[in-house]
């Protein structure tokens, strides 16, 4: 599922989020965002500014308190729980700060997992495609290793391949290099850049690393719950 370049894949209008607790905590005050296919966007901002909250809402992991969120042209407020699950499976890929691979599975099994969740099993062709991606990211020798025997960088590269498994239109990366040393971080970032350019996937990356942020097509900053464009 590769999106056509230029097509709008993320659109939010007046997106607000308030966490309900003993005291309601507003986090996002009205975010308007548009991301097109193949675009690489980085989001920066102070800790607690609402970057991860925004990413969770864009990935249908969380729901907005107010406002419109359209992912690949679909208003996510109209979707059921299963509909949201299908969206997460087919349209969106996630990369987290921690790799979040399943320790019970090998590197190859982890990477193929989204396909299996989507349709029960993976074809030989799909497994070969994933295998090829893992080789390309330098994990050809780690295919049958468990995540706990691989380095942080290797695990994160495997997590990126997993995010690409269902050929999504959007990959949302929440500080994907946050747990890596600068060399591994650079490698992971370049990999994402490369995939974005080659496959035409929109990447939205939250990062604290200003150097990586500036290497994106567009930098957005969240400040006081509002978003502004830096360049």
């Amino acid at each position, binding site marked *: 599922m590769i999106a056509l370049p230029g097509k709008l894949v993320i659109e939010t209008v007046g997106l607000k989020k308030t966490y309900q607790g003993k005291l309601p905590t507003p986090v996002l005050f009205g975010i308007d965002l548009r991301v097109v296919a193949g675009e690489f966007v980085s989001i920066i901002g102070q800790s607690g500014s609402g970057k991860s909250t925004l990413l969770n809402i864009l990935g249908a992991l*969380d729901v907005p308190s107010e406002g419109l969120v359209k992912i690949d042209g679909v208003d996510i407020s109209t979707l059921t729980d299963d509909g949201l699950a299908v969206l997460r*499976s*087919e349209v969106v890929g996630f990369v987290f700060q921690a790799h979040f691979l*399943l320790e019970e599975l090998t590197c190859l099994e982890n990477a193929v997992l989204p396909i299996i969740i*989507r349709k029960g099993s993976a074809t030989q062709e799909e497994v070969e495609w994933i295998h090829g991606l893992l080789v390309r990211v330098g994990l050809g020798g780690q295919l049958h290793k468990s995540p706990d025997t691989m380095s942080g960088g290797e695990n994160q590269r495997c997590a990126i391949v997993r995010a690409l498994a269902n050929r999504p239109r959007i990959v949302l990366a929440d500080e994907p290099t946050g747990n890596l040393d600068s060399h591994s971080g650079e490698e992971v970032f370049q990999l994402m850049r490369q995939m974005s350019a080659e496959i035409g996937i929109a990447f939205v990356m939250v990062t604290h690393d200003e150097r990586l942020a500036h290497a994106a097509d567009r930098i957005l900053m969240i400040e006081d719950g509002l978003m502004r464009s830096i360049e």
Partner: protein
Amino acid sequence: MTITTFLPRQIRFEGQLAWRHLRSGGGQTWLTIAAVASGVIIVIFIMGLIFGLQRKFTALLTDAIPHVTVQVPEGKPIPYADLPGSRPGPTSSRSEMQAPQRKNIDDWRTVLSIADTIPNVRTVSPAVAGQGFASKGANPVGVSLTGADPAQQELITPVTRNLIAGHYIGLAADEVVIDYELAKDLNVGVGDRIRITSISGIPEPPRIAGIYSKGQGRGSAYVTLRTGQSMLGIGNSVNVVYVKVYDIYGADAVAERLAVLLDCEAKSWSSEFPNFVTSLQAQAASAYLISGFTLIASSFAIASVLIVSVQRKAKQIGILKSIGARKNQILLVFLLEGLGIAVAGSVMGAIAGIAVVYLLSLPKQAVTRVGGVPESLFPLMLDPLYILAAMGAATLATLLAALLPARSAAKMNPVDAMR
């Protein structure tokens, strides 16, 4: 090929993940399986013991007695006012039961042919039964006399297997078989002659052909049908027809059918021993209750282990949801995990339960009566039906126990779960 290869393609992923959970669970998985297995072992043991005891007591009682006894009904007293031709107006009358006295069944061959047509009837034996006195010299001793064809009577109240001397099958017209206690009271042995006088007053001097011991009762004597008829002075009639059935719990239906068809009194063994039947039912109910409580207790243990397991896997649930897993898929993973535990626990419990029951059935009791054979100390019984029922009930209880944590896993918010 793995264990999940046999699952339908649509749930193979869930099965595979459940299998991995079980494998990675290690000691915790084995502990949960052991909880299920313990429940199954206890259920099999309790059922084996209770139903084994029931079978033993029922066999002890019903093997030695007729299952249905057919006789002519006793006359019942009729109040004066109900008599035909009685004058209206205030009356005073006193009703008294007639002294117990068996009426004769003259057309007993018809009774046999009708009884033979009723389903569940195994064998029918015409007989004469009455009271008398046995003596050897002085001091007569009361005796219950049964006159019947030995081969047929053997199928109703087995004598041969309890013989400690002599024979019963092939009994001659001038022979008698008496019980051990009676022989002791009269101080006689096989080959001796005794005098038996029935209540009709006709004395016979039969020779003792055999002595038996059932370990219960005293003062019984068996003679041939012809000799019995002669002793009781009832010509060619009999006064009772004994019936043995295949299914002892169907004896009531046979008795009812016989009573309707023959217009006679037919009593089943269970109506003769109502307290025994009630105690059997109470025992069975206790066995079911204990089994139920055992399974409930093990379900709670399983549920608590699975709840902890779900909490430990919260992050994984969040990850799976973030990559597209639906609620039903998460639910299925944990239900299949529960099913794996249930099946493994049930199978292991059944094997261990059968072994326990088998080993406990080996010790024998000391023989306490003459001619007795050693019996199991624990009269346990293994019935494939209740073993399967125990496995099924344990599997169901485990699945119900797994449902609660599985539902909470399926409902988990992925963001909260990964935090």
